[in-house]
Every structure is written in structure tokens, then in C-alpha cells.
């Protein structure tokens, strides 16, 4: 039985007349069962492999993708339902041989790997169609934990952006999808949109040889999930406006628009599947100001786990976001380090994405300013991984002030890696004790 604990980090003191309340909500799930065998029929996995013509260039791409898919199949626990889809400008079920999913056994795994070996690359790219097939396969399963891996090497050329958007709208919430781009001919923004909508991760696998380990890790991650379709429930008082609800750790994902109303005064934000893990959320609420000395509950955060087999949903964990108005500026101006840390990380991600966008558009001035700010923030926060990636795109003159020059020549892989990983955050080092 998975349990959820909610902790809130904030400075609840507001200056007279202030209305914006910020809090970092740390959610820790514990007690997820671990072991080699998933309860039969509780998890389902679909692996989607890009088989467009470009997967032959270089030849190692398709070879590595097949090896990676085989490794993912090997990582599936006995009892997990699975299927493999080949994607081109159409979508084709590679395994099993008839529409549907099969339960992983030594025999089905061997059959699936045989079928994957025979894959050939030929045709275009229509990712929406691949996802629709995956969705239809999942709908044939009763598993609650539904996870897909999507591998592509190119842009979504053979359907319109609108078709893809419609598909995402139709299937969102049905399964979680981790997306991987191999090589440098795919579109970061496109894959990020798919991953964000389907509550999964996005990453670049620059060298095809890296795919196998990555697929194995993703599948193992999916196998460790114990509870699906968990929602973050936020109650806010009358007259309050929710400015945003973002996941800020382990990756940045804005959930604000994903709210499903739960009257009265609550809303649910989807968070996907959970194993034993910790995630941080940044909640920003605007409340009506009250007189100094007054105290208000600005928000209440809990986790909603759907009931299994007809049982009631469970509401677990409870965190309180407070607002206390004071005349004491020593209290109201105190900066909460958790809030500051993740505000900085969100700004860092935005600066990188906007900077790279400007650079692509030839706007050197904006690109230099944004990427300079990114270097400065990465240095302040101590985000060394991001700082390292930035230094491949800009020459840093002074990291502290964010003085940089754009590099004249940047390898596509470096730019795409920086872009893709910009939403990867670093956990704040929590204080031992919090002030009362």
C-alpha cells in the first residue's frame, strides 16, 4: 500500500496588502511494493519504435533501436502486459500478432524479440498515429499502470501539428509516455509537448549506442511504479486565484491548465504514476488580502489515489499553505529558500529555452541576454550540469554577472541537449529545521 506524505515549505508572512502566496509542496510516496513479479495484469507497457526511412542513416540507429527495444522487453516483469509498435507515416503492431496485448512470459518475450529483429526502416513520420495505436492497445487492457516508450529520430512530417494536438487531447490521461529523440533531426519542442501532455520525460540520446541502457532504465522505472493516475488536489479559499501549479522536481512541468474542477473550491492536477519517490511542486495562489494579524488558509494540498476494483478513491496526505499578514517587515521580507531555489530553476529553464529560440531566429541580442542570464542563474544555483551544457553554446566571460558571447559554431547535438535538459531540475538542499 503506497502512502503519501505532504510537506509545505513557505514563508507564510505577508506584508499588509500583499496577496500572493508561494509554497513548495514536497510529496513523498512510500511503501510501494518492490519485487520481481508485478501483480498480474496491473501494468501494461507499449514500446513505440520509429521505423521511418531515416532510421537507416546512419545504419547504427535502427540496429541500436532494435537492441534497445529487446533490452526493454527483457526488463519487463513476468505478468506485465505488453506490445511493440512500429511507427512510420502509418503505425503497425509488431508484436503480438493480433490486435491487443500479451502477458510477459519467457516465451512471449522471446517471440517479441524475434519480431523486433525483423524490423526494417521505410516510410515517413506520423507520431499521432503511433500514439493512437498505443492508446487503442491500452484500451484493450485492464491494467491501471500504463506506460509507453516513444522513440523517434525525426520531426512529425506526415501529419499536421493540429492532427497531433487533437490526438494528444484525446489520449491525455490514458497512459504515461516517456519520449526519446535519437540523433539531431527531431524537434525538441514537439517531443517536449508530447512528453508534458502525457506526464512523461523527454531526453536526447545523441549516440544510438546509448539507447539500450536508457530503454532498460525507463522500463525499470515504469516497473517500479505502484499506483497510477494519482492527482494532486488543491483546495483554495473563496475569492482566490491560482496563478500556477508546477511540478518543479525532478523535472519542470506546468500543470496549471490541467486542472479538473472538484467542487466546491478544489481542483485536481494529474501527476501520473508513482513508485516510492519524492517530487516537489510549486503552488502560487492569489488570495484576497486581510488585515494585519489575520491568518488565512490559502491552500490545502492532498493526493488523490483512485480506488481499485470499485472501492472509493482515497485522499492521502494533507499540507497547509498559510497566509499571515504582519506589519513586521523582518518576517514578511524573509525569503523562503525552497521557493527561491525553484523560482530560480524555472527562470533558468525559461531563459535557456527563450535564448535558444532567439538564437535560432537570428536575434543575437536577445539570445546573448537570455543565455547570459541562464549562465548567471546556473552558477548561483550551483546547477553544474546545466552550466556545463551552456558552456558548449556560449563563451562565458564572467559567470557571476552573466556576461557571455554566443559561440559562432555550435554542434546541433549540444544545442539540442541543452534545450532538452533545460527542464531537468536539481533538488533543493533542505534545511534541517524550519522556523515556527
Amino acid at each position, binding site marked *: 500500500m503506497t502512502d503519501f506524505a505532504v510537506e509545505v515549505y513557505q514563508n507564510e508572512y505577508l506584508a499588509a496588502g500583499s496577496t500572493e502566496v508561494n509554497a513548495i509542496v514536497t510529496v513523498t510516496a512510500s511503501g510501494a511494493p518492490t519485487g520481481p513479479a508485478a501483480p498480474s495484469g496491473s501494468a501494461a507497457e507499449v514500446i513505440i519504435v520509429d521505423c521511418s526511412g531515416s532510421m537507416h542513416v546512419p545504419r547504427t540507429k535502427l540496429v541500436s533501436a532494435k537492441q534497445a527495444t529487446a533490452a526493454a522487453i527483457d526488463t519487463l516483469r513476468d505478468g506485465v502486459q505488453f506490445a511493440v509498435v512500429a511507427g512510420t507515416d502509418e503505425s503497425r503492431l509488431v508484436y503480438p500478432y493480433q490486435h491487443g496485448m500479451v502477458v510477459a512470459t519467457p516465451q512471449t518475450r522471446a517471440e517479441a524479440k524475434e519480431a523486433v529483429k525483423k524490423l526494417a526502416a521505410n516510410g515517413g513520420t506520423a507520431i499521432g498515429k503511433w500514439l493512437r495505436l498505443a492508446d487503442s492497445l491500452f484500451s484493450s487492457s485492464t491494467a491501471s499502470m500504463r506506460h509507453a516508450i516513444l522513440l523517434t529520430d525525426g520531426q512529425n512530417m506526415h501529419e499536421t501539428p493540429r492532427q497531433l494536438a487533437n490526438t494528444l487531447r484525446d489520449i491525455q490521461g490514458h497512459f504515461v509516455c516517456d519520449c526519446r529523440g535519437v540523433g539531431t533531426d527531431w524537434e525538441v519542442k514537439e517531443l517536449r509537448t508530447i512528453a508534458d501532455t502525457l506526464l512523461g520525460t523527454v531526453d536526447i540520446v545523441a549516440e544510438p549506442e546509448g539507447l539500450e541502457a536508457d530503454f532498460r532504465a525507463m522500463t525499470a522505472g515504469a516497473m517500479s511504479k505502484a499506483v497510477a493516475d494519482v492527482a494532486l488536489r488543491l483546495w483554495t*479559499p473563496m475569492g482566490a486565484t491560482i496563478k500556477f501549479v508546477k511540478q518543479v522536481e525532478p523535472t519542470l512541468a506546468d500543470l496549471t491548465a490541467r486542472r479538473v474542477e472538484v467542487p466546491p473550491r478544489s481542483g485536481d492536477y494529474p501527476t501520473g504514476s508513482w513508485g516510492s519517490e519524492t517530487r516537489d511542486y510549486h503552488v502560487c495562489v492569489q488570495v*484576497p488580502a486581510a488585515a494585519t494579524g489575520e491568518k*488565512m488558509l490559502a491552500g490545502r494540498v492532498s493526493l488523490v489515489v483512485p480506488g481499485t476494483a470499485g472501492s472509493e478513491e482515497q485522499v492521502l496526505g494533507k499540507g497547509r499553505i498559510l497566509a499571515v499578514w504582519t506589519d513586521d517587515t523582518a518576517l514578511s521580507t524573509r525569503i523562503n529558500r525552497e521557493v527561491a531555489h525553484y523560482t530560480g530553476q524555472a527562470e533558468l529553464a525559461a531563459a535557456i529555452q527563450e535564448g535558444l529560440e532567439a538564437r535560432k531566429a537570428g536575434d543575437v541580442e536577445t539570445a546573448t541576454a537570455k543565455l547570459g542570464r541562464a549562465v548567471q542563474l546556473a552558477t548561483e544555483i550551483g546547477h553544474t550540469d546545466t552550466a556545463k551544457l551552456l558552456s558548449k553554446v556560449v563563451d562565458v566571460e564572467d559567470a557571476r554577472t552573466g556576461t557571455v558571447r554566443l559561440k559562432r559554431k555550435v554542434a546541433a547535438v549540444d544545442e539540442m541537449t541543452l534545450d532538452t535538459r533545460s527542464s531537468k531540475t536539481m533538488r533543493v538542499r533542505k534545511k534541517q529545521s524550519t522556523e515556527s
Partner: protein
Amino acid sequence: MTVSNCPGCGTAVGPEDRFCEECGQSLLVQRTPVGGPVIEPAGGACVACGGENVGADGFCEDCGRGQPSGRDRMEADFGLVVGVSDKGKRRARNEDSMAFGTVLGGDAPPTVVAVVCDGVATSDRADNASQRAVDEATTVLLDAVLENGDPAAATKAAVARAIEVVSQLADPNVPGTAPSCTFVSAVVTPTEVTVGSVGDSRVYWLAAPGSAAMSSRVLTVDDTVATELMAEGLSEEEANAVYQAHALSKWIGADAGEIEPRVVTISPGGPGHVLLCSDGLWNYVPDAAALTEVMPAEGGMTAAAELTALALKLGGHDNITTVLVPFPPTEGEDS
């Protein structure tokens, strides 16, 4: 006077009874409950939006407003003595406490006893210290009144008892944070007012307008570094300029050392009010004449609430406790 219900537990009692058959309490005594006159949270409507949907955690389920609860705002009105203790606007907790009681009927003249203690904010569990001190001291004073004891001697005994119970709260392993508090008490009879003090809480005599009584004045002397220096001959200005001029020189607590309270008895000679308060009130209006000016003449809960509101309006920097007793304690009606 006929008592039909025990003021302590509410059980019906006969006109000749002196003690309640149910709880054993003296039927002559009405006093604030041990632990303070705490308002139970989640009672009625929300103080902000008026909705009827206050949650168990003390917040309105509609507008989110925190409801005044527990020690944040304590009020008690016994007619002859009223008190308000408020957290103020800047402190996280209310570390002031008040306790009082009346003895009406019986052999003794109508008498009111009241105690206010201000927990020292830099000490641990200061709210606990002040509450135990006022409760125990009030018991000592009420017992003395019932036995026709000497008010001055009873005041000293009450302070000794307060020191004893507050010292018990100290953690012997952490000498620096011994819980501590100030102390003021008043025993008000139809002829005299006996006042005891330790620390910087105050008791004022506030003469009624046009009364023949002695003029309004402070009946206590602050036990602070500044007043001790003034006693040694420094001017007020010089004394207030020294480092930590307003730090306490005496307090109630395990680390207080050997202390004697200041005890004075006055005969006001005319009508007025006895005001016991913490520095959360008098810091804003220290002057006795000025306090007399701002206090509503009718006294009672209206006056206590208005003095508290004034301190809140002027900043509410500290906890505010105001206890008012009319003199002589015979005019108002008993409840």
C-alpha cells in the same frame, strides 16, 4: 443573594448550601477556568465571511480565514471583573495569561482577585509558564479571601507559589531557556486595593471622572534595568539610554534567584477602576491620566475590549492583556 446553580459545574444547589455537592467548590467563588478562558475553535460562524462551515482545524472551509481560537484571544466577563487577552498583531503566540475570581456572599466583604502574567518571549514555553502562574496564584488569593486572610501576606504567598510552579517547568539540562514570566496581582475589597508585582506588567489606579478619589496613577514599579538605575540617581533619559534599559531585572522563573515582590495597599477614597495589564497595552499609553482619558467611563467588557482595540490599532506589537475591576467592587451586578 441566592445561588441556584454552582458557578463551577452548573449543578443546582440549595439556598443554604456553601459548597457544591457535585464538585465540592465553594459556592461563593466564581473564577476563570484553570488553563485560561479559552474559546473553543470551530464553534459558530466564520468571523470573516459569516459562513457556517468552519473546519476542525480552525479555518473557514469557504474563505480560508483562520478563526480566533485557543489562547489567541481569551475573554471572560464576571460583571465585577472583566478581562481580555489578545495575541496582538506581530507575535506568533499569546504568551500573556490572566486569571481572576470573585468572592461574593459569606462572611467576607465582596472581593475581587485578579492576576496577570506576561510570559518572557525569549524563554521556552512562556505561555505555559504564565498560565500556570496565574491559575495557581489566583487559587492562593481566593483561598486567603475565603479565610479572611491578610491580602498583603496572601499576595506574597501567591508570588511564592507562582515561582514554585513556573520553576517546575524548567528543564534542568537547559538552564538558558528556563520558562519565565512577569507577575501582577490585585486584591480589591470595598475599602482597599492590595497590589503585588514582579517584572514590567502594571497595575493602574484610574479615578472615575469627577470622583473624590486619589488621582489616577501607576501602583506598581517596573522591575527593569532602567528603573533600577533611576533609583540609583540617573535621570530618566540617562537610564533609558543604557544598553537593554528595558530588560527585566526581576522575573518569575527557575533562574530568577531570590526575589521578593513589591506589595502595596492603597485606600482610593472614591470610585474608579483598577486596571491590570501587560506591557502590550501600557507601552502605547503609559501615562495614568491618559489611560483614564481613553478608557470608556462605563468600564466593564466594553472598556476592556476598547483598550485592547486601541493597542491593536497602535501596532499590536506585543501580546495585550487588560483586566478591569471597578472600585468599590459593589456597583456592577454579579452574574
